[in-house]
Structures are given as C-alpha cells and as structure tokens.
C-alpha cells in the first residue's frame, strides 16, 4: 500500500466541461498506476459525453460535453467503472529505451551538476541512466514527458534564469524530476545530455514517442553514435 493513495476517488469541479478526479495526494508510482488503469479503462468503455481523458501524476481530468452528460452522472459512471476495474484487462506499460549522449555540447550543465553533488560526470551518467522511470504526465510543450523518480543524489534546482533557447532532445533535471525537451523552447532545467530521437514529430502518423504511464530507460551513447542515429532519424 502506498502513502497518499485515497481510499475513494475525490471529485473536484473544473467548470461546466471538466471533472477532476484525484486518486491521491503525492507523486507516487502506486497512485500513478491507478491513474493509468482508470485512463485505460475509460478509453475502453467511455461513458457517454466524454470528450477527452487526461492522466497526470495523481489525477485524471475528464473533459465532457455538457449537452450530453452532467458532472454528477459522470461521477456515478466513474465509481461504477472503478468497481469493475479488477475485471478490465490493463496491459503492462510500454518500455521505451532512449539513447542519450551525456555532457559536452549536448549536456552543458553535466559538469556543474556533478560538482554541486560532489560527484564525477561519469557517476552522474551512471546514476541517471540506471533507474527505470515512469512517465507521470505529458505537458508544458507538445510531448514533454515528466519522469520520476530521479535518484535523490541528483536532485538539482532549476536555473534561476531560464535559457531562452533549449535545443530539441535535451535531457534535463529539475528538482526531483527529469524530462526531455521535445521541441526547441525556452527552459530552466539543468541540461545533462541530448537524445537524437524525435520525442515529438507532427509529420509522423503517431507524433508522440511517449504517453503517460510508459516506462523509460536512458542508454548512454557516444557523440559518434549520436550523429549516426540523428542521421538515421532524418526524414
């Protein structure tokens, strides 16, 4: 049993088109697994009027059409679905391996992150690429995955002044989280490496490499491998 998992779902009103369903009050893999299971169950058996289900750390936001259903009807639908959850087949999460070239021009903050924790760059790479991370939420920019949990020894605050331009594919750290910038954007995370994979590509039939609930493992690669993979991904 996990700390912070509610005994029963908690409903919050998010206007006349949104219902927020909370399953706990912590960033926790067990709570997030519950969120994922409910999101999948809702995808398989959507109640009438549901437009979109958005899973995050510990809650689901359900967007609905108030001309077709109401908040109170949805609450009943959700409680009924939750009771039947054990009967619904929830597939195991997908595991995605992400090659990352750490340090150098690809990870300009690797050395300072290492120094601030009294570690060598090699130790930071080893510690960062060791765990299997859970995608808790996608947001901020198209396809940006918020990954947890980052080993505590690497927790590092954001830059006080965000960079105006972070290249696509940059792998960063912000406090207890790690993530990947899918498109070039401003950003304040500590950049320790970069992946040649396209996390977001609107031209692909499925533009998104990751979804909430997936598992992610980083694989360190050399600059040569980075260049080879970046060319192979060229389209």
């Amino acid at each position, binding site marked *: 049993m996990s700390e912070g998992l509610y005994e029963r779902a908690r409903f919050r009103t998010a206007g006349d088109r949104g219902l*927020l369903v909370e399953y706990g009050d912590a960033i926790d893999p067990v709570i997030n697994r519950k969120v994922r299971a409910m999101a999948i169950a809702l995808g398989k058996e959507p109640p009438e009027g549901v437009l979109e289900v958005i899973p995050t750390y510990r809650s689901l936001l359900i967007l609905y059409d108030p001309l077709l259903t109401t908040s109170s009807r949805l609450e009943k639908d959700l409680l009924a679905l939750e009771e039947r959850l054990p009967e619904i087949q929830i597939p195991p999460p997908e595991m995605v391996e992400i090659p990352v070239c750490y340090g150098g021009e690809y990870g300009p903050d690797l050395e300072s992150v290492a120094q601030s924790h009294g570690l060598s760059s090699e130790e930071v790479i080893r510690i960062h690429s060791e765990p299997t991370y859970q995608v808790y*939420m996608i947001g*901020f920019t198209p396809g940006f995955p918020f990954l947890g949990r980052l080993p505590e020894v690497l927790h590092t605050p954001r830059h006080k002044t965000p960079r105006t331009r972070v290249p696509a594919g940059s792998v960063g750290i912000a406090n207890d989280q790690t993530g990947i910038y899918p498109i070039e954007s401003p950003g304040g995370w500590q950049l320790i490496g970069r992946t040649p994979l396209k996390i977001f590509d609107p031209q692909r039939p499925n533009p998104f490499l990751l979804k909430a609930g997936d598992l992610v493992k980083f694989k360190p690669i050399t600059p040569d491998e980075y260049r080879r993979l970046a060319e192979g991904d060229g389209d």
Partner: protein
Amino acid sequence: MEIFRVLEPGIYTTVQDRGRYGYQQFGIPISGAMDQFAYRVANLLVGNPEDAAVLEITVFGPRLEVLAEADIAVTGAEMPITINDEAAEGWTSLRVRPGDVVALKQVRSGCRAYLAVTGGIDVPVVMGSRSTYVGGKLGGYQGRPLAKGDLLARGPAEPLKAPRKLPPNFIPRYPSEILLRAIPGPQDDYFDEGLRIFFGSEFKVSTKADRMGYRLEGPVVPHREGMPQSIISEPSVPGGVQIPPDGQPIILLLEQTVGGYTKIATVISTDISRVAQAKPGDKIRFEEVDLETAYGILRAQEQALQKIRETFAG
C-alpha cells in the same frame, strides 16, 4: 483555391477553428477561436459548416487582397471594415471580387474579430484541426500568425444564393466592464476569505493578456492560512482561474495544458467568449454560479444558435 494575399497582417492574425481536441494528454492545448459564439456565427453567415476555419483578428486588423469571388463575413469585436476604402458592415455577408481590398482597422469595442470566407480558410489539418498553436509552431498557416505576402486558400463551396444578415437582437455588446460567471473550484477549499474577495472585487485586465491566459490586477486574493499555494501539476481547462503566490488571478485560456497553482474558480464555458473580447485596462468582476446554472446558460446559447440557423435556412 487562392482567396487572399496578405498586404498587411495586422497586429496578430491567426487561422483558428473549433479547436484541437483529444491531444491535451500529449501536451497539445485546445487552441481554436477564443470567442466561439462570434466564430460560429461568422461561418453561418457565409453558409459554412460551423467548424470551418476562419481568421481570428486581434485589436488591429489586416489588409487583404481578394484573389477570387467569395462571400465573407466579419463578426466579434467592432472594427471598422472597408472594401476598397468604402465602409462595410459587420455581422452580415459581403460579396467580394478579385482585386478588392478588404481592410479592418483599430478596434472600437471588444478585442477579437472573426473573418469567415466561403469554403473556410484551407490550411492543412494537423491532429484533427486547422487551428494555429503558436507556442508549438503547429497548425494554421505554417504554425504562426500571418505575415505580409502570405497567400491564403479557401475550401471548395458555392457562394450564397441570397445575402445573410444577423438580426440585431443576436449581436452581443462588448462593454469594457465585464461580468464573468464562474463556478468555485477545483481548489476552492484552499481559500476562505480569498473567495469573498475574489467574488466581491473588481479586477483590471493587465497588459499580459493573450491566448494562453489573462493576468489580472486588483486586491490580493489570499490563500487560507497554512494551505500550500502550489499543488502537484495538473491539467488545466480554459477558464480556470489560477491564484499564484502573489494573489493576482490569471484566467487560463486556450493555449495552456498544465499548471501547478491552485485554481479558485472556473469561468463558465459560454463566458470564455466574454474574456476573448476583454482587452488590457478593461474591468472584470466574477459572479458565483453553480453547475446547473452554467448548464442552463449553455443550453440557452445553443437555442439562440439554433434560431440563427433557422433564420438563415428560411
């Protein structure tokens, strides 16, 4: 079929439609026309499906050279419209011909106007929508606001058999003192005195007001003592009113996906159109309503749109 050459783009003109649904779970916000009522009526006036793509024109409009015969209609904010320097009316269909120059000038009331054209603005459909999401550089015309020299195309459709005009009783007014109806929550339990201040005070729209959100200025809305000011990041809905630690409300709008501040209330969906027509300096008050009232207001608006459809069909 090419329909417009952009001679001057205006301050901020984008292609928008109903919005991009189903991708917020991947970090793609809804986008779409901010004032959905004016947007839908613009399409009805030229005989389009209500979800066709239009131009959303902010504060100061573009100058467009017409490249093919078509019907256009301008709705929403009151901006002086000219065709070849002759004044033309809003909320009515206007026939334009090759060589005509359509121009919209400085807004007189409201903030955003909508220009619909026969067949709809034709840009590639990206993830189910033609709406521009500027922050993600996708959708619309090359993922950005219009620029001088852009060439816009329209979809195939027949011109109207008879001109259409919206009966004046359906035309909204856009006052500079705006009342927004809002439902408490999702985090109203993080506030006590703050709720009274929020629903009892007047706020001013700051200069930080765009399609992502409207930052307001006014009395500080305090959190309940001992309650955290931020929460675990969660998805946001258009109309959610975030209270950051400085106590100055931010109305979250259409180009926003997640947020980590508490939301004291949510503006009802029909009143997002009122926010869309608010500009910096305008005054805003919030009125507390419950869900049932909000559903009722939405049904009434749908009935009004149904009447408008019947007017044009008759």
